[in-house]
């Protein structure tokens, strides 16, 4: 049975079809789960895709954390299931306190859509289990609020616990410590600003995101047994 991934759709989410398409291209099964639902229907992994959930009104991710589906996402994470937030999904995971820190406006105070180089910093997360540490991936970013920030104690913990998943080689947005993606302590919850699904086919200019998505599918396959 192929790995099943729940892709959460808030009003204003816009990368759900891209993530679902990339998952299915790699042999997984993707279920779109609307934000009003209260169950993930036994999926092995959850992706909160990019976009502008609830218009990003008030503050990015601030309203989405109150949607009914987030209780199911939190349960899934607490049970050790794989949860990945991409871009706006990362912002939502920090607002929901599933990941520490916050994403603030880019240093240049402009929206940035471009491809950047990121280095894989650890293989002990659900998104990088199959990636080689030190490998440089070309991944698109697409955000206005992508500068990761946190207090010094949190940064110390992220570093000490090997929780920085990806770092920018040439920091595009002013992120603290060049951070592009982090995980929780257990490594089953990951948030990242780059979009692996946008680097999933040679025709799109890079297929470097495939190794990340394959890692997630492997984790989803393992996770669905427990669920």
């Amino acid at each position, binding site marked *: 049975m192929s790995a099943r991934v729940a892709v959460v759709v808030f*009003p204003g989410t816009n*990368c759900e079809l891209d993530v679902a398409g990339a998952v299915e291209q790699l042999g997984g099964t993707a279920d779109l789960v609307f934000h009003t639902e209260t169950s993930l229907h036994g999926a092995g992994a959850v992706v909160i895709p990019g976009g502008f959930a609830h218009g990003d009104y008030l503050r990015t991710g601030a309203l989405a954390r109150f949607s009914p589906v987030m209780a199911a996402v939190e349960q899934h994470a607490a049970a050790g299931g794989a949860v990945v937030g991409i871009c706006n999904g990362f912002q939502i995971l920090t607002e929901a306190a599933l990941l520490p820190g916050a994403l603030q406006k880019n240093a240049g105070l*402009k*929206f940035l*859509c471009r491809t950047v180089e990121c280095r894989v910093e650890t293989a002990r997360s659900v998104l990088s289990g199959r990636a080689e540490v030190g490998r440089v991936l070309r991944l698109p970013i697409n955000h206005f609020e992508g500068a990761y920030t946190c207090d010094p104690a949190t940064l110390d913990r992220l570093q000490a616990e090997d929780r920085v998943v990806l770092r920018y080689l040439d920091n595009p*947005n002013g992120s603290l410590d060049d951070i592009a993606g982090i995980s929780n302590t257990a490594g089953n919850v990951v948030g990242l600003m780059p979009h692996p699904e946008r680097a999933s086919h040679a*025709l799109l200019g890079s297929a470097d995101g495939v190794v990340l998505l394959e890692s997630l599918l492997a984790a989803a396959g393992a996770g669905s047994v427990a669920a």
Partner: protein
Amino acid sequence: MPVSTEPLHRALGLTDEELAAIVALLGRDPSDLELAMYGVMWSEHCSYKSSKLDLRRFPTEAPWVLVGPGEGAGVLDVGDGLAVAVRIESHNHPSAIEPAQGAATGVGGIIRDVFSMGARPIALMDPLRFGTLDDARTRYLFEHVVGGISAYGNSVGVPTVGGEAVFDDCYRENPLVNVLCLGVVARDRLVRAVAGAPGNVAVLLGASTGRDGIGGASVLASAGFGADSEGKRPSVQVGDPFEEKRLIEACLELFEHGLVVGVQDLGAGGLSCAASETAASSDAGMDVDVARVPRREAQMTPVEVMTSESQERMLAIIEPRHVDAVLALCDRWDIRAAVVGHVTDTRRFRVFDGLFDPARGTEPDPAALADVPIASLGEGPVYARPRERPWSQEALVAADPWPELARQFPDGTDLSPELLALLATPSIADKSWVWRQYDHQLFLNTVVGPGGDATVLRLQGTTRGLALATDGKARFCRLDPRTGARLAVLEAARNVACAGATPRALVNCLNFGNPEHPAVMWQFHETVEGMSEACEALGIPVIGGNVSFYNESRGADIDPTPVAGIIGLIEHLDTVPPPAALGPGQQVLVLGESRPELGGSEWAAVVHGLTGGAPPDADLVTAARLHEFVRSLVAERAVLGVHDCADGGLAVTLAEMAIAGECGFSLTPAPGLAAAAGCFAESASRVVLSTTPDAAAAVLRRAEAAGVPALDLGPTGGDRLVVTGAFDVGIAEVTRIWRDAIPDALGQREGGIRPSGRV
């Protein structure tokens, strides 16, 4: 609007003659509401009254055209059961007054036009024109227009995959903000703006109706700017991309479930326009009850409700049995939905305030606030306005800049400073400051994004792709509008050929000055002729367009600016097309003929201030031959690099390819032509290719067989850009000047976090 003693009809933009026509067709004086509706519907913006006669000239038919001009969007068949819906619009006047909201609502409006056909919008392109960046207000307009497109387009979830930014002093107070949207729909799922049978109900979907945008079509878009333009700010609408995103998803679901008969966007003219046009196209009538329209503000008058241009609203026509299902589906997406009218068999458009009761059926109601023949709203006056070639045109065309330039830059002059000056002009310089602010990758279709010749999108579920390009060079049109319009079509077609595509359809946005000036109508007429001739020669049907008149400030008309958007089809898109870039160890070829054609060129006009002359020759047979030859080479992947030769001439084309590939060259100039002309003339129908050294001879032979002039210029390599006897510059300097020109003009160079590589 300020209180004045002006008669109401004039305040609404209607002339005394137009009022007389309304009185004659109604057989009585119109009510205020009726007058307001005619004011909107008969405005230049909605009725095309000054342009209609000329627009009939465009060729519009081809076997693959499913819907031609006149509906929400033109639609073409792209094979495999798929159709593509395309439309282009202008939002010039609102953007001049309130750039961020003006540009944003332009994006919102065009997206609604496209999904009203049942298509999911998948791409936007923004051809923009501004004054020069040494002017503070121009910098403000430029930054905020781009910011508005970025904020709205990114959030609404439709990628902006291309466009243009051109700078010329003629747009100083009247920027042009054109926007093209493309959507994809299964061919058998097309939705039309029809009302169907009497008894169907009209449901208003989306945002509540407020006082914003009242008079947008008649007051703003159909008159020039004067000293009181600031006072028109309340006529600019305010956009909400989150509302629009939910509206898109809700409407696409309504279509998917077969719950709607027809649907139309509420754009210019608001509810008056949408409700009357929908019913008129089905030869039916429509009764509307303004009391049922959800409102944003208290005490709105029926006139305000009927003419408001509040954004993010759609009118859906549904069968009564589907009302509950439609309301439930809208509720899921948090979309307001209210039954505001019903379709009748009266062929009249009637408006009530609180008296409408669906149970009454089609019984006439004596208390109608408006009651007019429905077809009369859409059948405004048609004007054959006087047109005249201005007396000054002769002298303008005669002022060829080449003799003066040839004198200043005889062979042997070092042209390096001239090349650098050209690369620093904002119209030629790197535009990534603009398009990095746009999400240009959403939906995973973007194979070639902004910054190249044509944008290339894959059509998922097929092996095909689309190539999109918009072009238009007003400076050529100013000298000779007919030739300039031909050149706009040729450049867009050449760009899609460089992506290996065959042009299948054209949409145009015709931006002009005041149509009451005979010189402007002459420019317009000539433009339509030239564009039609080029389309006929290349076999490209026109499937839609937009006319924007009254682009002027304090009496000065803008240069005629027709923008051509071409949609090309790529039969097999299995690999990324060759880039507009050079690599080491390649051979550089140029196709097409170079002549000392400097009239209207970037070098003559912008660098040296010589703005006269004739535009380059626009021979259509030569162009068609070149396009087909380039398309076949690219489709076969017989070349390694390919780039259209346009603004700035051959030297700029080569420099752009060198910058993109981070690779220099060492070339020999074309024989028999002065070096300066060879470098900077903007002769049409030229393309630069790069190949492996072994393949060059075969390409030259094929060119000869195809009747396309071709020349081997020499090898690539090294870190200098060298054309013997013309220029010799280092690639680092060229790159820096080209890349930093726009950020520097805006005082926004990114410094430490600027990446060195390309995207």
